[in-house]
């Protein structure tokens, strides 16, 4: 029995997991049109590499990774590219982003797949392939996986944590995945361990999922894989990477640092599964398990092609009359979807349909009474009441002093707040203001550098021009005195003429030019 630890705080929101966990995963219907956003991960948007009218096959790369922190996107089915334009996407802003729209031909014809031969390929080659296969973390942050699979030049990452905690209420996609496809998950974990040179492999699953635990344990036995399948106590946000690592290892990532600083890397079970599919079948990441739950007729888990419009998926799950909104993610960390025309993306783990009965409006917010309930609940051991105080006063410097950026936005403080303050909204506001200021400052620094270099360039040019003028005068004099048959003089004359022409050209360019008359005149 492994000794477990505790993280600070945490809450026990009602789980509502039984609503969708009983039924097995079903394949979602193939929609007529798929809308594939080019930005489905953290980092730079992928760059479209198909054109409108192109025929694409299932699994074909339609957007290439651009820059380092990026991942490719793929056609989820075969068909024709009918548009590449701005469409509403799943984002709290409700704004649009560049998407590739594919009209499905219904054949679902695969492109030729090449498997990854891990024994023969070196690690960096494998990581590059994973990047091209679009692998990104499916736990919610959608960070490109190939970066996390790089142990770095010096260090090994001795501990690999596979996160099957799934602490957020309502969501059961990881639960079902673990129950039904435990072998693939562990196969993925084994590949990860190889790439990271990890020796200690831990799979953390909250103890409210006994079937998933049993399935994983059976799979580990049958694969003869020395992973430690650990039941962790159910406590929100026990599925946060830092919290799970703390529970399993007792180690806490330093403030502002990453888990790799303490020799631990953490992946979601969904990512491990996708990795196994990528390596063993050459399949890019173009589908995922999505929990559709809440006020729907058939709440359960669906295997959905990325790009499927949310509305179609909700249709399949059965609309109900009392539904009055959709949350992507769970009730603690999810956000409202403004337009269900938005497609399912790599980050979509759950569509939670709201109804007035399930989500009654919050009581009126009241002023902060500084009771400290939020500080007791905060898993990051922050002082949410102080963060709130300073974020509200727009004193962003102070919020950073209180370690705003260690906040994981888990929503525990919101949940316990007796005044029902939207605390996390204030932290998000403060964070995005600080980022915007950072960007503004960088832009200003760039402008300053460019302005300074321009000023110095102008000065240099002026000095050079003066120098040339000074040099030209004696040349002219020389022309008059030295006999023209001297070869040296001829060369000098040619040089002078050339210089003169250049100066004249420059002056002509510098002078205000009249409107170009038509060529005929």
């Amino acid at each position, binding site marked *: 029995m492994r000794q477990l630890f505790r993280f600070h705080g945490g809450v026990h929101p009602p789980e509502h997991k039984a609503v969708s966990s009983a039924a097995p995963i079903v394949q979602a219907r193939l929609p007529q049109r798929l809308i594939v956003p080019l930005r489905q991960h953290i980092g730079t948007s992928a760059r479209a590499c198909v054109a409108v009218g192109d025929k694409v096959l299932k699994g074909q790369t339609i957007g290439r990774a651009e820059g380092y922190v990026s991942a490719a996107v793929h056609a989820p089915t075969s068909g024709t590219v009918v548009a590449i334009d701005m469409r509403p996407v799943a984002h709290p802003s409700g704004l649009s982003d560049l998407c590739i729209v594919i009209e499905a031909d219904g054949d679902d014809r695969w492109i030729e797949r090449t498997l990854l031969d891990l024994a023969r390929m070196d690690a960096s080659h494998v990581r590059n392939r994973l990047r091209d296969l679009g692998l990104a973390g499916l736990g919610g942050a959608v960070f490109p996986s190939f970066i996390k699979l790089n142990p770095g030049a010096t260090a090994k990452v001795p501990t690999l944590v596979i996160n099957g905690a799934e602490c957020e209420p309502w969501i059961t996609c990881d639960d079902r995945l673990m129950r039904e496809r435990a072998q693939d998950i562990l196969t993925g974990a084994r590949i990860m361990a190889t790439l990271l040179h990890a020796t200690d492999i831990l799979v953390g699953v909250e103890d409210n999922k006994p079937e998933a635990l049993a399935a994983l344990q059976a799979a580990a036995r049958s694969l003869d894989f020395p992973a430690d399948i650990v039941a962790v106590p159910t406590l929100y946000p026990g599925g946060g990477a830092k919290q799970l690592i703390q529970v399993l290892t007792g180690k806490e990532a330093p403030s502002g640092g990453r888990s790799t600083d303490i020799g631990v890397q953490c992946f979601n079970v969904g990512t491990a599964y996708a990795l196994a599919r990528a390596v063993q079948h050459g399949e890019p990441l173009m589908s995922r398990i999505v929990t559709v739950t809440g006020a729907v007729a058939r709440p359960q888990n669906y295997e959905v092609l990325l790009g499927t419009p949310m509305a179609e998926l909700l249709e399949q799950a059965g609309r109900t009359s009392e539904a009055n909104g959709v949350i992507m993610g769970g009730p603690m960390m999810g956000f409202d979807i403004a337009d269900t025309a938005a497609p399912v993306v790599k980050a979509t783990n759950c569509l939670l349909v709201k109804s007035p009965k399930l989500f009654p409006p919050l009581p009126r917010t009241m*002023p902060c009474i500084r009771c400290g309930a939020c500080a007791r609940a905060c898993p990051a051991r922050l002082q949410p009441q102080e963060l709130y*105080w*300073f974020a*509200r*006063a727009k*004193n962003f410097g*102070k919020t950073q002093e209180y370690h705003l950026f260690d906040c994981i936005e888990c929503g525990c403080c919101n949940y316990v707040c007796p005044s029902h303050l939207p605390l996390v909204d204030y932290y998000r506001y403060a964070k995005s203001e600080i980022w915007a200021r950072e960007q503004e400052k960088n832009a200003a620094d760039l402008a300053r550098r460019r302005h300074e270099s321009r000023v110095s360039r102008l000065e240099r040019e002026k000095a050079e021009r003066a120098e040339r003028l000074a040099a030209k005068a004696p040349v002219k004099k020389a022309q008059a005195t030295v006999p023209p048959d001297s070869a040296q003089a001829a060369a000098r004359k040619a040089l002078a003429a050339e210089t003169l022409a250049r100066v004249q050209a420059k002056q002509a360019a510098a002078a205000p030019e009249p409107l170009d008359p038509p060529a005929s005149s």
Partner: protein
Amino acid sequence: MEQYFLILVGTVFVNNIIMSKVLGLCPFFGVSKKLETALSMGLATTFVLTLGSGTSYLINHYLLLPAGLTYLRPLSFIVVIAAIVQFTEMFVEKTSPVLYQVLGIYLPLITTNCAVLGIPLLNVQADHNFLQSLIFGFGGAVGFTMVLVLFAGLRERLDGADIPKPFRGTSIAMITAGLMSLAFMGFSGLVHLR
């Protein structure tokens, strides 16, 4: 030894120069908007006050008393203090131009800070020896710095508070200062300076 310690505790807490003697209110309200500025102002004042009370003692004891010119005390003290402030100003301008700019007018105004002239005069009144004078000056300045920093912390926090409109700004600061002063009365009786 105990006596020096008592002077220190007495000047810092019991007879705090701002809260119970009500001296030096100008910088107390002027430079207490930000914690860092308040601390810097406190440090500058500490430097001036400690040096000022030492030199004042020397001038009083070796120049004015033998010559029987005790009536020149305020005049000569202020001259020396002005010089020390000038010196501090140059030093601050050299080492921290931003602080120099932030302290602005309050830096030269240390000269006219009644606390700075008050303490050397109180020293003379209490008939302190040289070491006692130094400690008295230093303690007074530490008390000044402490109160200034505490008050700046409170005011930074007040920025985010829901203060009724008519009380915003200086008025709430005045109320806060009054309450702080009441709180400092709790120290009276801790030490009796004889």
